[in-house]
């Protein structure tokens, strides 16, 4: 299998995993609101997206491994930069949320923003640093 084919397949699986995660979050929220409104099932349903997260992690690793050595390096640099950036921002936000009354932000928004930031940093590293 060529590099291009491997990357195309891994990207499709990754996008599918993202869709699965988003769908599982909305499904869990709907089930909690409309079907299991109380009891142990109410709590268990909240763990539904965890299964999708496992799939998403697997798909992310697959996408990472599908690239060649330079793409893997750029992806690694972008992942570390995103992690540092988002740990700092979320930590500061959390403190300000507790002490200064900043509004709570939906975790879905954080996830989507982190992914967009990673993509942006990856492009910058790959094109400007290595091309």
């Amino acid at each position, binding site marked *: 299998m*060529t590099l291009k084919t491997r990357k195309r397949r891994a990207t499709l699986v990754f996008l599918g995993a993202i869709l699965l995660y988003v769908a599982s979050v909305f499904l869990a929220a709907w089930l909690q609101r409309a079907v299991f409104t109380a009891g142990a099932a109410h709590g268990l349903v909240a763990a539904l997206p965890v299964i999708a997260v496992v799939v998403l992690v697997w798909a992310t690793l697959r996408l990472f491994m599908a690239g060649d050595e330079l*793409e893997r390096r750029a992806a690694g640099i972008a992942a570390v930069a995103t992690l540092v950036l988002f740990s700092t921002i979320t930590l500061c936000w959390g403190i300000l949320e507790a002490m200064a009354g900043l509004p709570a932000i939906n975790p879905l928004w954080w996830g989507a923003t982190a992914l967009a930031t990673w993509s942006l940093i990856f492009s910058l590293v*790959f094109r400007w*640093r*290595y091309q």
Partner: protein
Amino acid sequence: MKNRLKVLRAERDWTQQTLADELGVSRQTINAIEKGKYDPALPTAFRLAQLFKCQIEDIFEFEAD
């Protein structure tokens, strides 16, 4: 690290894409190596040497900082 990849490739009249396909890497990786912006991993360097039928030292030249 300096390298003669572009010269060796040109001698064989290969495009960056041809070389990339032979090595199983992307064209961008070949471009980055040729421009000296990226030093390839050892297995890739060995594969390049095999492909050009020469020693690694004939392609790459180490430059101390």
